[in-house]
């Protein structure tokens, strides 16, 4: 919930936003409807891998919601990232079932190995680490999802081998 606004050091990787494409999302997919704000933001994030700030400004003018409110929504929900994310998204499940089966140790191992903490991206943009609350695959706990791949029943000594599979 607590993503920071893009820092100055991030400016060089600011994504170019295609406003015509944004229009397609806002108008055609979601009927320029204010009630669809969350789903519009999700669609923008799917497209850019995060929610770029220019898209928020544009969305505000286009859909008629104050920027402050859009910013509020984008920072309230944990799905949204206002900073560029890495090429591979690691989602570590911290549901209760994974927790009692050692999920915390797996997270620690990943953090040590990549030298980043929860919500951060490695300097080479290879990985972003995000924790999620239960993905409902409790029988496979502890579970780590990397992009769309599910890695189940992993122990902390397997972490490096799994991470090596992603470039």
């Amino acid at each position, binding site marked *: 919930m607590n993503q920071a606004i893009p820092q100055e050091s991030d400016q060089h990787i600011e994504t170019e936003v295609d406003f015509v494409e944004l229009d397609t999302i806002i108008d055609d997919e979601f009927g320029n409807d204010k009630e669809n704000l969350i789903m519009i933001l999700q669609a923008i994030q799917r497209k850019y891998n995060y929610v770029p700030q220019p898209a928020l400004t544009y969305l505000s003018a286009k859909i008629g919601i104050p920027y402050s409110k859009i910013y509020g929504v984008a920072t309230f929900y944990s799905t949204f990232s206002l900073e560029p994310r890495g090429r591979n998204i690691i989602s570590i499940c911290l549901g*209760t079932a994974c927790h009692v089966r050692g999920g915390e140790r797996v997270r620690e191992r990943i953090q040590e190995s990549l030298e980043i903490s929860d919500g951060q991206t490695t300097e080479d943009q290879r990985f972003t680490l995000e924790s999620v*609350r239960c993905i*409902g695959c*409790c029988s496979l706990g502890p579970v780590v999802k990397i992009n769309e791949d599910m890695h189940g029943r992993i*122990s902390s000594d397997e972490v490096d081998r799994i991470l090596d599979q992603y470039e």
Partner: protein
Amino acid sequence: MNKDVEEAKIMKIQSVKDLEKITREYSTSLYYPESIKVNIGMASCGIAAGAEAAYNTASEAFANDKAVQIGQTGCIGFCEVEPLVEILANGRPRVMYQNITPDKILDAIDDYQNGLSKKKWILGQMRDPRSILEGEIDNPVGKVEPFEAIPFLEDIPFYKGQVKIALRNCGYIDPDCIEEYIAKKGYRALLEMLDHSEPGKVIETIKESGLRGRGGGGFPAGIKWATCAKHDGDRSIICNADEGDPGAYMDRSILEGDPHSVLEGMLIAGYAIGSRQGYIYVRNEYPLAVKRLVTAIKQAEACGLLGENIAGTDYSFNIKISTGAGAFVCGESTALMASLEGNVGRPKAKYVHTVEKGFRDGPTNLNNVETYANVPAIVLQGAEWYAGMGTDHSKGTKVFSLVGKIKNTGLVEVPMGMSLKEIVFNIGGGIPKKKKFKAIQTGGPSGGCIPERFLDLPVDFQKLAEVGSIMGSGGMIAMDQDTCMVDVARYFMDFLKEESCGQCNPCREGIKQVLDILTNICAGKGKEGDIELLEELGSMIQKFSLCGLGTAAPNPVLTTILYFRNEYEAHIRDKKCPAGVCKALFHYEIDADACTGCGVCARKCPQDAISGEKKKPHTLDQELCIKCGICYEACKFNAITIC
């Protein structure tokens, strides 16, 4: 496998007769297939275990072979042994194979055709594949000679004692095929109701059935429906599919395995309450559930069972899907409605209830996925039938997800009132690795931890509340001797601190203070008086928070203090974590008598902290040890001890 709406031979359904026609046609493929049929359980859990790859392997191998047909179903519940594959043929028993990974799928199909010799791969054969609604049709395998020396699925401890109402079709039908749902008595309740039931009568049925909301609060559904129907305005029907309790995944399973049952339940609610618009608020973390819902809605619309003038009547009802964005608080009804309106999900004080003024300020009825999935069965079989199951105040069945330190992880549906012991030890198979049972956690972050001495407790809404926990959405997390109860309390407070919306003081500040104290205790900095302070803070948060998230938030702390006070005291006074979880409060040692010198721990240790000669007791360098626990998990001789 995904039957596109355009491709399917979809007909407009006008009457029960039309449903019967489809039923006749599709009961062939469901029960008496012309070829060998292979049904692969393809819910998210199955796919994660390798089901999709197995499906692809099998589809490719039999692409040009009409003698074997590959299909998909949802989750049949026994997640521990997924991927699960059911194989059947006309005139032969139906056999469930377990742990069928892609490398085993072709051999399993071959095994079914040639003698069933791979006994270890076989979970069981089915005595009766009919759902609870199909009593009047003959048992499709009733006259089939069963295989010898293969157990019946219904006799396996995991399935014995289960009664499937909400999960009646999960794992038995292709969720992307509306006809298979119809062939299992789907949409029958809707059409019969439209034919000859007044809305008021439907509400009476739900009231008399005693159905209570399955999402957490357990409010009687019939009363909610009646109150909503009483208020004038643009009424909305909402399905809460934002399953947020960690460790509970029954709603995902229903949406992925039987989406039409939820749509039908909402359609019935819409008719009874007098609404023409429904919304499903579903977690964004469940992409497969969203996909299957979209397919189901398109199919139902194409059949004329959803949309304008349903089945040629005056009743019109539409359903829109909205995806959530990862906020636990949106499980709270007013927060969910705010989120549906495109706002930040902050709860409102309930001076006025949502049944009067909810979504867009109109009367709104909100139930969760499991509640709606029960509705068609109740309307079809009658209130008395449903009320005949369960206990005095909790009728029918409840789906539980058995997870954590338990042998048979999975989804089980049992009549209300079954004891915790039966659920955990008979169905769940008890605790793995010969460890000792410590507690069962129910109700997610708003629930509590129930110790061993209450194992005989019959599980229903009242009884769980009496011991300080709640039913919640039905998550049951088993904990063993290696689970630290102070750490569990800290874990939930950490969860709730992140998820508190932050608008009211008692919840926002109170939870933070509780978390700080617990974090200190876990770090070895606990002091006398901390326990009492936690109790005082807990009671304050319970009394003064605005919404259900806050008022229930202290439950995990208060129940662990109540039942596991000795663990708190060990942390604070003795500076010890008996379970070996809180790193500052224990260390590992090698028991020289038990150590065989096999060297597994030394090879696995990431710090090279363990050394020793082969076949001689090893030693552990405390300076280097980071207490990652890898050696403890790896040692087969219990030679690594917690001190």
